[in-house]
């Protein structure tokens, strides 16, 4: 149990998917102008990464390994994630219109979010069990959501700040992301 908790803390904060592995920089920059959009994107990412990490783990160990075609993992995971996003969008349209309204526009963006593929591949390369893969499927997108939401709040304040002309927009946003990465490095010693 403690091992799973350590894994959760490690993947959420210490080895944060955005600020230490540099996955999902695209939605971090593109969707962080408004905190509400950032939060909705984060919720959609939690939903998809959790399901995709379970599905990809099962496909790898119950189809690719027995058939000895593990070299197909990358292309299989890409196709599985793309199909999963389509199924999820369809399911939400039909049975959960309120959730679809909240996150519908962000679902297609997740197909191009490399954090989803990154979690699926990391689960395999780290030889996680199914339970560990499920913990990773919650911890990683939670870390992403926290970072993108905090980043959006800071960017909202920065839009009112007296920033030099040459630093406005992307430069100050990237510097902010760098400072946030430095801040997270402060807790790097807590969990290996």
């Amino acid at each position, binding site marked *: 149990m403690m091992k799973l908790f350590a894994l959760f803390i490690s993947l959420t904060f210490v080895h944060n998917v955005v600020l230490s592995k540099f996955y999902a920089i*695209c*939605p971090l*920059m*593109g*969707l962080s102008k*408004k905190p509400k*959009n950032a939060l909705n*994107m984060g919720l959609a990412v939690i939903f998809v990464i959790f399901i995709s990490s379970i599905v990809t783990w099962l496909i790898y160990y119950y*189809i*690719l390994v027995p*058939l*000895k*075609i593990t*070299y*197909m993992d990358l*292309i*299989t995971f890409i*196709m*599985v994630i*793309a*199909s999963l996003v*389509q*199924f999820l*969008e*369809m399911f939400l*349209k*039909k049975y959960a*219109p309120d959730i*679809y*309204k909240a996150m*519908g*526009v*962000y679902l*297609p*963006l997740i197909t*191009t979010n490399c954090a989803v593929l990154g979690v699926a591949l990391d689960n395999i390369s780290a030889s996680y069990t199914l339970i560990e893969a499920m913990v990773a499927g919650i911890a990683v997108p939670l870390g992403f959501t926290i970072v993108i939401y905090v980043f959006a709040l800071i960017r909202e304040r920065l839009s009112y700040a007296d920033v030099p002309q040459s630093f406005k927009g992307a430069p100050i946003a990237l510097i902010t992301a760098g400072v946030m990465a430095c801040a997270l490095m402060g807790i790097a010693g807590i969990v290996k």
Partner: protein
Amino acid sequence: MIYAIILFVVLLIIYIGSFLLNKRTPRPKDCPDFKACHGCANMLCTHRKKESQ
């Protein structure tokens, strides 16, 4: 090798099927039109409004 080809074909069929099914599923009645969305700066998003429109 044959298993790899079969798996790829199966995944491709599943993706095309899910894409077509999703496309045919109607949106909820009071849902906003995402084709006019400018919620993010991702140019790959299929909901993003074209610059020419």
